[in-house]
C-alpha cells in the first residue's frame, strides 16, 4: 500500500505543478458558478420589460407598478428598446409616445404600443404589463366616480385615503405550488450551479487527465516503476489511487471555494464528501479505461473532454434534471452524474440522511467497481502493448 500511496502522491504533485491547471482547476469552475448563478439564480423572475420614451408621469407610474409586481424594468430610447426585444434581451418592449404621455396627464384615453419578444416568458410578461397598466388608472377612475357623485376632488381623495386605510384588500394565496418550485425552494443563488459544476469538473478533469496515463506508458514510466521492488498490482493501484486523489482534490476545492466565496450550502458536509468520494472513484475508473484503451493522447484528450461535457449535459449538470422531459430524465440515469446530482439534491435541499442517499451511493459504488476493475485489467494488458 505504501508504494501505491507514493505513486498517487507523485501523480497529485505532477497535477499541481502543471501551470495550465491553475486556470482549469482553480479559476474556471468558480467563474462558471459565478456566471451561471448570476444569470439564472437571481430573482426578477417575473420577466423583463423595457420601457421606451422620455420621462413621464405615465412611464413612472407603469414602471413602479411593474417593479412592485417583481418585474425588472429598464428604460431606454425607442430604437434601443426595439433592438433589445429583437435580440431577446428583454421580454417585452413598451413604447410611451410623447402624445400618450400628454394624453395621460390630461386624463384623456391613451394608446400605447407593446411589443412582445419571441422567447418563452414573453406572453406571461405581456399579461403582467396589461395588469400594471390597468392598475395605473384605478385611482383616477375612483376619483372620477366620486366627483360624479357630487364630491369635490380634494374631498374625494381624502375619502379614498380613509376608506383605503380601513380596507383589507382580497388576497390571492397560492398553495401547494408546483413540483419545480418546491424542488428548487430553499436553494441559494449559487447552490444549484455549484453542485452541477462540481460534478462536471471532477469528471472532466479526470477524463482530460487520462492522456497522462498514455504518456506514462509511452515514456516507460510504468515499466521503470515495475523495475523497482513494486508489484504490478501495487503499480496499478497507485495509478488508480492517483486518478482518484486528483478527482477528490478538484471536488473538495470547488466545495470549499464555493462555500467561502459564494456562500453555497453543501448541506451535511460528511455526506456531501461521501458522495464526492464515490463519484470520484467512478471518474477515476473511467479515466483509467480511456487512458489504457487508447494509445494516442490527442485523441484521448479529445474523447475525454467530449465525453466529459456530453455526460455532464445529459446528467443534469448544465440544465437541471428537473427540467428534463420525463423519458430523458430516466435515460439520464445511465450517467453517474445524474445519480450524484440526485444525492446532492437530497442532501442540499431536503436535509437527506445517509439512508436517503444509499440507493444513489450504491449505484455509484457499483459503477466505480466495474470501471475500476475494467480500467485495471485493460491497463495491465496495455502495458504489454508496444506504443
Amino acid at each position, binding site marked *: 500500500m505504501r508504494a501505491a500511496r507514493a505513486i498517487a502522491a507523485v501523480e497529485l504533485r505532477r497535477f499541481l505543478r502543471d501551470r495550465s491547471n491553475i486556470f482549469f482547476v482553480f479559476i474556471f469552475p468558480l467563474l462558471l458558478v459565478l456566471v451561471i448563478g448570476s444569470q439564472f439564480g437571481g430573482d426578477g423572475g417575473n420577466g423583463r420589460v423595457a420601457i421606451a420614451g422620455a420621462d413621464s408621469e405615465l412611464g413612472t407610474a407603469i414602471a413602479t407598478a411593474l417593479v412592485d409586481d417583481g418585474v425588472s424594468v429598464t428604460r431606454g430610447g425607442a430604437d434601443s428598446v426595439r433592438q433589445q426585444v429583437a435580440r431577446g434581451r428583454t421580454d417585452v418592449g413598451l413604447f410611451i409616445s410623447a402624445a400618450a404621455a400628454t394624453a395621460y396627464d390630461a386624463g384623456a384615453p391613451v394608446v400605447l404600443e407593446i411589443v412582445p419578444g419571441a422567447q418563452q416568458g414573453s406572453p406571461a410578461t405581456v399579461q403582467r404589463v*396589461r*395588469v400594471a397598466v390597468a392598475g395605473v388608472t384605478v385611482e383616477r377612475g*375612483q376619483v372620477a366616480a366620486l366627483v360624479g357623485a357630487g364630491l369635490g376632488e380634494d374631498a374625494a381623495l381624502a375619502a379614498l385615503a380613509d376608506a383605503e386605510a380601513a380596507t383589507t384588500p382580497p388576497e390571492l394565496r397560492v398553495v401547494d405550488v*408546483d413540483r419545480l418550485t418546491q424542488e428548487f425552494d430553499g436553494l441559494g443563488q449559487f447552490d444549484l450551479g455549484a453542485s452541477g459544476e462540481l460534478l462536471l469538473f471532477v469528471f472532466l478533469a479526470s477524463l482530460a487527465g487520462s492522456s497522462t496515463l498514455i504518456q506514462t506508458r509511452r515514456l516507460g514510466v510504468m515499466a521503470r516503476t515495475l523495475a523497482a521492488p513494486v508489484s504490478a498490482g501495487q503499480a496499478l493501484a497507485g495509478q488508480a489511487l492517483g486518478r482518484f486523489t486528483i478527482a477528490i482534490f478538484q471536488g473538495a476545492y470547488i466545495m470549499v471555494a464555493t462555500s467561502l466565496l459564494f456562500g453555497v450550502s453543501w448541506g451535511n458536509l460528511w455526506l456531501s464528501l461521501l458522495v464526492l468520494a464515490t463519484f470520484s472513484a467512478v471518474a477515476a475508473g473511467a479515466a483509467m479505461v480511456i487512458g489504457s484503451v487508447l494509445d*494516442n493522447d490527442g*485523441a484521448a484528450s479529445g474523447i475525454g473532454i467530449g465525453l466529459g461535457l456530453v455526460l455532464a449535459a445529459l446528467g443534469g449538470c448544465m440544465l437541471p434534471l428537473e427540467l428534463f422531459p420525463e423519458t430523458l430524465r430516466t435515460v439520464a440515469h445511465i450517467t453517474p452524474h445524474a445519480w450524484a446530482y440526485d444525492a446532492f439534491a437530497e442532501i442540499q435541499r431536503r436535509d437527506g440522511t445517509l439512508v436517503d442517499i444509499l440507493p444513489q451511493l450504491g449505484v455509484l459504488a457499483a459503477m466505480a467497481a466495474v470501471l475500476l476493475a475494467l480500467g485495471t485489467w485493460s491497463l495491465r494488458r496495455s502495458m504489454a502493448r508496444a506504443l
Partner: protein
Amino acid sequence: MRQLWTMTASDLRQRVRDRSVIIFALVVPLALMFVFNLTSGGAANLTLKPVTVAVSAPAGDDLATAITATLTQVEGIDLTVDEVSADDARSSARSGDAELGVVIPAGFGDAVRAGKEVVVEVTEGEDSGIESDIVLTVVQGVLTQLSAGAVTAAAGAGAGVPDAQLAALAQQAATQAPEITLTQGEAASEQLSSSAALIAGQAGLFLLFTVGFGVLGLVAEREQGTLARLRSMPMRPWLIVTAKGLVSYILGVVATSVLLTLGSMFFDVSFGSPVAVAVLILCAVAAATSLMFIIARVARTAEQASVLQSILALLLGIAGGAFFPLNTTGFLDVVVGLNPIAAFTRGLGITSGGGGLGDIGVPVMLMLGFAVVGLAASRLVPDRGRDL
C-alpha cells in the same frame, strides 16, 4: 504557389488522418448539440398550451362571478373554466386534471365590499407552467379592480353619498378610469430559436478548437525540429506560416459549414440566406484564425499553446452564448459584443430572421475588425518561442 499548396495539402492530409481533428471539429460538437437539444427540448416549446382552470365560486355572488367571467375572456391563451365544488377544484389540480384550482370562499363578495380580509386560494398543479402564471396574473388583476370598486363605495359612504348610489359608484370606478389601450406591435426578430442558438453556439465554440489544428502546428513543428528543416528549403519563410494559416482556414470553413448544415438538418432549423451565412462563416473563421496566430507567438511549447487555446475558446464561447444566452447590459454588453463568436451568433440571428447580405454589416465588420486587429497584434506581441 506550388510549394504553398504542397505544404497545405500535406498538412490537411495529416490532420484528417489524425483522428483528433475529426473528434474535436465534428464528433464532440455534434454530440453536444444532440444532448443539449434533447435536454432543453421540453423547455424550448414556445406555443402556449391550453389550460384548464377548475373554479369553485359561491352561487349568487356577483363579485365571484366577475372573476370567473374574466377568466373566460383571457386573450391569447386557450383557457377552459370548469365550475366545480371547492374540494373538486383542489383535487383536480393535484391530480393533473386541471392546471389550476381556484377556490373563492363563500361570502367573498360581501367581504370585499366590507373591506374585510378574504383569501382566494389557488392550487397549482404538478406541471403548471407559464400558462398558470398568466392566469394568476389575471386573477390578481381582477382582485385589484374589485377592491378598488369597494374602496370607492366605502369612500362614497364615508363622504355621505346615499346608499342607493354606492353600488353604481363601485362600477363607475372601473368604467370612468381613462382608458389605456395597448396595441401590439411586431418586433423584427434577430433571435435564433433555442435549437438554432445551440447549433450556432457549439459551431462557434468548436471553431476555436478546429482552427488550432493548423496554425498551432507551427509550435509543434518548432518543438519537433521540422520547422527548422522547412526553413532550410529554398522558399520564402512566410510561405510556411501562410500554409499553416490556410490549413486553419480550410479546416474551419469546412467544419463550421458541416456543423451548421448537419445541425439545421437534424434539428429542423433554418439559418436563412445561404450566401449571407457563407459570408458569416468566412468572416468568423478569419477572426478565429487570427487569434491562433497570437497564441502561436506567445506560447513557448505546444502544450502551452493548447492550454491557452482552450482557455480562450471556452471564455469566448461562453461569453458568446455557446451554452446559454448571456444577459449583459451596459459596458459588459459592448465588450461581449466585440467577441467574434457573439458576432457570429448575432449574424446568424439576423439571417435566420430573414436578413440578407445588406443586414449583416455590423457582425461582419466586427469579425473582420477582430481578424485585422488579431493579425496586427500577432506581429507586435513578443515572439516567445523565436523563429516564428
